[in-house]
Each structure stands twice: as structure tokens, then as C-alpha cells.
């Protein structure tokens, strides 16, 4: 469904990605691992249409997305992808429920309806109690659950998560991850998650190991 074909990306003299190819199937859960600086985040950003590769193609459902004009690409990210960042990156001035409703509102859904959907998602991730609290008042784990809800609320095809539990302790991180993967599995949403943690990678259907911007020959892919 989502495919990278010989994708390369350089920053200055650093070759962040070198001819990486991979394919992610409908509803598949993929962990991207590898040492620091291996290009994991860069790969994820290329797949998610946040960064354009220099060469190679990124294809979603048979349609090249790396050549779309910015406005189309932005709309595609909004409608087909969800993103979870390491620190959540929620809007601190909004309540948890409003943060989750935000993507729906930007898809021009009615406010009342968007808030109702947001409440359902907060319940699915077990953070209903936090609905009316501002982000500053939440714990790290609660924030990440809200961030997961925000990424999933539009019913995306793929959710990208860059070390979604990197800022949490191991049990807290594991619970958030379970919540993300359970909901994704139930809805057949594909997940691409970047992680340093082997135990986290064990939850995935498949692990892609990156080293120096490439998938080494013989490595699982």
C-alpha cells in the first residue's frame, strides 16, 4: 500500500538515506530500528510526505506522492496519515479533547460532532478523565495517549510514530504502545514506528533495521 523505491536523502555531506526500498502492507505494523543517526527519522519523514527525497519514489496506493505540489501533499497528510511525535507536541493552550478534535475541525467537520468523536477516542485510549484538562496538567503518559488519539481520530491509512514512548519510563511506554497497537490492529491501520527499544520492536509484525542510511543486505525487511 505504501512503498519506498530507492529513496535517497542527503543533508549537506551526510547521506541520511541511501537507496532505501521497502513496502508496507495494509494494516501492517512495522518497527524501524537501528543506531542513532542511522536515518530512521529521515525515512519516516520521507514516507509521511513531510520531507521530499532527492531521488527515488514514494508511492501510496499506486500514486506517487513525493512529486505532489505542496497543497496536495498537505491535504494528503491531513487525510491519510497520522503522526505521533516523541514528546506529543500537542497544543498546550487547548484541552485534551480539543487537541484530539483539531484534525477533524481542520477537515471542516462540525464542532459539536468533532468534539463527540474526540470524546470517543479519548475513551478508547482510557483517558476520558483528562478530556477537559489542559495539556500542561497531564502526565507524560496521558499526553502520549492524547497524542495517539489525535493521530488516529481521522481514521488514517498509516500512523507514523517517532519514538512515541521515548520520553516515558518502560512500563508507561509499554502501556501507551499497547494502546496504540491494539487500536491500530482493530481498525486495520498500518503503523510505522521508529524505536531504539528492542522490546518495543517485538510488538511489531516486522522489523526493519537501518544502518548508515541503508537496509543492510541479509537483514530482515
Amino acid at each position, binding site marked *: 500500500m505504501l512503498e519506498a523505491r530507492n529513496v535517497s536523502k542527503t543533508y549537506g555531506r551526510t547521506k541520511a538515506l541511501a537507496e532505501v526500498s521497502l513496502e508496507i502492507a495494509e494494516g501492517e505494523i512495522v518497527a524501524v530500528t537501528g543506531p542513532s543517526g542511522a536515518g530512521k*527519522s529521515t525515512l519516516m*519523514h520521507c514516507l*509521511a510526505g*513531510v*520531507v521530499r527525497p532527492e531521488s527515488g519514489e514514494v508511492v501510496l496506493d499506486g500514486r506517487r506522492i513525493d512529486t505532489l505540489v505542496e*497543497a496536495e501533499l*498537505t*491535504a*494528503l*497528510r*491531513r*487525510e491519510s*496519515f*497520522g*503522526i505521533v*511525535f516523541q*514528546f506529543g*507536541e*500537542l*497544543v*498546550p*493552550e*487547548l484541552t485534551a479533547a*480539543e487537541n484530539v478534535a*483539531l*484534525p477533524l*475541525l*481542520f477537515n471542516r467537520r462540525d*464542532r459539536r460532532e468533532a468534539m463527540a468523536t474526540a470524546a470517543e477516542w479519548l475513551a478508547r485510549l482510557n483517558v476520558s478523565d483528562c478530556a477537559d484538562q489542559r495539556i*500542561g496538567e497531564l502526565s507524560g503518559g496521558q499526553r502520549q495517549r492524547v497524542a495517539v488519539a*489525535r*493521530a488516529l481520530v481521522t481514521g488514517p491509512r498509516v500512523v507514523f510514530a517517532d519514538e512515541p514512548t521515548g520520553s516515558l519510563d518502560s512500563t508507561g511506554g509499554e502501556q501507551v504502545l499497547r494502546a496504540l497497537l491494539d487500536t491500530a490492529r482493530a481498525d486495520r491501520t498500518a503503523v510505522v514506528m521508529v524505536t531504539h527499544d528492542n522490546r518495543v520492536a517485538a510488538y511489531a509484525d516486522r522489523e526493519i533495521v537501518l544502518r548508515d542510511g541503508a537496509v543492510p543486505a541479509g537483514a530482515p525487511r
Partner: protein
Amino acid sequence: MIDVLRMLNRGRSRPERVRAWLVMAGAGVATFLLCTAVSLVDVRDDGASLTGLGLALLALPVAGLVHQANRLASATRERRLAALRLAGATPGDVRRLGALEGGGLALAGSLAGAAGYVLTHLSGPLPQVPVVLLLMTAAGAVSGLRAGRQVIASPLGVVRRARVPGPRVRDLVVAVSGAALIAWGAVVRAGFPIAGPYGMALVMTVGMVLLLVGVTMAATWLIRAYAVRAGARARSPEALLAARLVEANPRAWARALSVVGLAVFFGAASGAQQAATGYWQAHALVDVALLLALVAAAAALVVHQAEELIDLRRSFAALAAAGVPERSLGGVLVRQAVITSLPVCAVAAVSGVAVVVASAIDIYQVGWLGWAAGRALVMTGVGVLTAVLVALAARPLLRGALRLETLRGG
């Protein structure tokens, strides 16, 4: 203490150097304007006195710029100051550092401004120069002292948004006593008991500062109340975000808009008076001063906008990555400008007209109200337009904040 300051300065980044220049330039210009304003105070000539008042009015937003720049410091230096705190510096140390730096920069800047004044006014009156120098340096130190507050509160950095208190009588008292001082100075003029015209100028300046502070505090809760309403009614995500962002930080907006509000107030008042007296020439001078004040106020708004974008960059960059178009985020900035400037300018315009009408209630004719209202409406529009134009001009800043690099690293 000085050693620590040197150490901090050695590690200065480019934005910090820019800020230091902003502080010095602002202090310099404010000093020059204030010295000139005092030299123009001529008890026999209404025109010159009005120009002096206009220049003093102009010096305020410039001084405000100094404070804004000092606040910008807390955003850019935050991490290093926080590291100092974690390394064992007491809150007092951090505060003293801020005061030392703010005062030093203000002193350097106002020395240059004073030199400029003395060189251009060799034959003019000079006794006010040391007083203005002292005032500017003290103001710089106080502003530097207060700018580090956030780091002082928590060594782990920013917990923004302390709860904003509701309306307080204190705000009103400050504003009214400021207005009273100005009125006193204007009425007694040369007959002022101490130091004649200079005493009057000083009293009126103090009055102006008090008025500005009081108006700012009142504007804080006015803006917040309006933002809460706007948030509850918002239909679009842009409007919701704008209202909530304003609601979380109304004080900064009030500060940035206070001079816009004052300009609208004086503009509306002068219009109401014009309708009655037709005293065109002096009013034209006031209008020029108001226009310049609006320009300076716009500069303060730009600094505020930059400061806000530094705060917002991570959440905005994350929204952009999640597919929110830049146009929408730009729309958030414009809506913020409207949500904040509309209530401030409307209230300022209405009170400007009201003050004039009330003070001349026995002779004021209903027929004059049409002109007064028209002028008040125009001033409101000009005030809101200024804020909106600044928001539109911040587009390049916004684009910079949305770059993905923002999300890389801490």
C-alpha cells in the same frame, strides 16, 4: 556575579545579539525623544507643548520595545538560565543577573541617545538629560529583573500561563491616578509648585506611565473575557485556536496593544473635541503624533508576534507536519489580532469620546456627536487594521517556525 554575566555573554547566539541591539537602540531612541519632549515644553506656546506631549507619547512605545526585547531574552536564554538554576544559582542570583544585564544595556543605549540630544541641542536646555538617563537605566534594570520570572519560578523551565487574575480595583486606581496627574499638570502648567515647567513635565510623564500601566492591566481582563466568548462560539479550528491562545496569555497581548489603545483613545477624544472647537492646527499636530505612535506600537506588536511564535513553534510545526496548511496557521495569527485589538480599540474609542463629552456636557451639542462617532469608528478601524497588518507581516516568521528542523532535538 559580573563573571557569570561575562560567561553568559560569551556564549551569546545571534538572536541574543539582535536582542541586545534592540534594547540599546530602543533605550537610545526613547532617551532622545524624552529629552526633546521636555525641551519643547513651553508654557506660553500651546503648539510646542502639544508636540512635546506627542513626543513623550512616542517615547513610551519605544520604551515598551525595550521591555519586550528584555522579555524576548527570557525566551532565548531560558535554557542557559535554567542550567544555572539547576547548577545551584538562587532565584535572587538569576534576578540580579537579569537586572544587571537589562540595566547595563539600557544605560549604554541611553548614553548614546543623550549624546545625540546634546549634540543637536547645544544651546537648548540640558538639566533634564541626567534625569532621563537615570530613569531609562532604572527602567531597563526593572524590566530585566522581571523578564527572568519564568525561569525563576521553576528551574526546569517554562510553566507559562500563571492564572490571570480577574478585574481588580487596583487597576482602576492606577489608571485614574495616572489620568489625574496628567490633568493636574495640564491645568496648573507653569504655576507648578516645584521646578515650574520641568516639574510639570515630570508629573505628566509619571502620569502617562501610570495610565499606561493601569490601562494595560484593565485591557488584560477585557481581552481575556472577549477571548473566552470567542472560543465558546468558534466554528472554525482557526478561530478556536486563536481564542484559546489569547485566553492563555492575555497579558502579553494587553501589553503589546496598550499603546495602540492609547492612540485610539486620544484620537477619538481629539475628534470629539474637534467637532466642538474646530481647533484644527493643533489637532493636526496631535494626529501626526498619534500616527507616529501607531507606527511605534506596530513595532512593539512585531516583537510580541516574534516572541509568541518562539513559544508556539513546536506545536505549530507539529500541526503543519500533520497536514494543517500554512494558510490556516496564518489565519490563526490574523484572528488573534482581531480578537485582541477589537475590544481594546472599541473600548478606547468609546471612552475617548465619553471623556470629552462628559467634561463639556453643558455645551456639547447632539449634532456634534455624529462627527465624534465617525472619528471614533475610524480610529477603531485604524487600530484593528494595525494589528492585522502586523499579523500578516509575520508570515515569513511563521514560515520559519514551521520548518521541520523545529521538531528536531529538544
